[in-house]
């Protein structure tokens, strides 16, 4: 495998976060796939969820994520990094269908790490502020019992890209199955 910076990275996903990551033209040391989990953004009470809502928020994003993981393995990338919002760990009123997907991808990272470590691949997760996925902060207001330790959602260029570079570096060769929380302190329990 080569080591020619931006050519070594695949940003797999759609939406504003994926677009921002592509625009950042991230240079990484090791061949890397970034899986930007597709996250539905509409808060909806649990009792009003329809099968169509659930298909859109759970089934299709999960099938896409599974296929993205498989594609990264086929590409023999050395690093797979999944991006999710932290609401999967915390839960969120009105977002049960969305939290399910976020947490499922986060734990699928651990399963993949267990199986693919022998293939020379590390698999990790970076958990970000929900706003970076387009979720209205008001919808997750009930999650935290305290104000954000750091104000704001964080910047893709200043806060997310450096984390990706670190996980995709040679220095992180022994780190796998981990979750790095970078949500400004919204959720402090892993």
């Amino acid at each position, binding site marked *: 495998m080569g080591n020619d910076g931006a050519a070594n990275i695949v940003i797999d996903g759609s939406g504003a976060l994926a677009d921002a990551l592509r625009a950042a033209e991230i240079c990484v040391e090791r061949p890397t796939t970034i899986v930007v989990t597709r996250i539905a953004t509409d808060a909806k009470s649990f009792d009003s969820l329809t099968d169509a809502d659930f298909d859109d928020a759970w089934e299709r994003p999960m099938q896409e994520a599974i296929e993205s993981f498989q594609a990264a393995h086929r590409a023999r990338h050395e690093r797979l990094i999944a991006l999710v919002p932290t609401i999967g760990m915390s839960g969120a009123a009105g977002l049960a269908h969305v939290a399910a997907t976020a947490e*499922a991808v986060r734990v699928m990272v651990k399963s993949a790490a267990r199986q693919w470590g022998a293939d020379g691949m590390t698999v990790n997760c970076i958990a970000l502020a929900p706003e970076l996925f387009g979720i209205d902060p008001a919808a997750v207001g009930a999650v935290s019992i305290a104000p954000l330790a750091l104000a704001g959602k964080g910047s893709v260029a200043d806060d997310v890209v450096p984390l990706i570079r670190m996980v995709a570096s040679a220095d992180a060769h022994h780190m796998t199955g981990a979750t790095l929380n970078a949500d400004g302190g919204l959720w402090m329990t892993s």
Partner: protein
Amino acid sequence: MSSSSGRLDGRTAIVTGAGQGVGEGIARRLAAAGANIVVAARRADTGEPVAAAIRAAGGSAVCIETDVSSRESVEACVGSTVERFGSLQIMVHNAFRGGIPHRLEQADLDKHWSHMSRTGVWAVMYCGQAAWPHLRASGASGRFIILTSPSGIEGSANIPLYSPVKAAERAMAKSLAREWGSSGVTVNCIGPVASSPALVTAFERTPTLKGAIEARTPLGRVGDPEADIGSVALFLASDDAAFVTGQTIICDGGSFLGL
């Protein structure tokens, strides 16, 4: 009937997947505590003997054939339950299909994913939605208990796509605990490792597995569905756990100590 008889007197519980294994153990334990039990099983030929055994022991139970992957079937089960017993306080979602060992890079969505997604995550939605009006009407006695797994926290090297399904159930429980908290209804998960037909099959497939589990388990054994897992379900269903919500109780003899 056990010494716990009376803690759930006058309450009604649906236990999905109660025709065998952990579900059966929970159904028997809740029945011994006085609850009316609906054994919601995919096939009456497995569910009815469990209901009959509960009745023979002096309890109150019926079997209702239920496919948890079908919204209509779950709604029919809840409707019949309320018609029969007048109310519903406790919904226990335990039923699950799938869990075939696989390599993640070779996983086939139809073969290795769909059954688990439908009977796990989709069924949480169906069971929760159908039960919700009745749980809300029960206020502080309302309980939604979801059977998940330690794999939903730590991942699985053997059945990698099992883990995300069980993780999703935990996330839904936390979200519902937040969403339903003002009503007094609690939502919790149990992560068991206990004897079940699926585990027996796994032991037969991998002869060293039972010894390996026992060796890594501080209590040195696999759990009993009724005595070990049913007792935790009884606690969560009882008034003793009225202030416990959004939690996962891992009940595996100490095998997983990572929370």
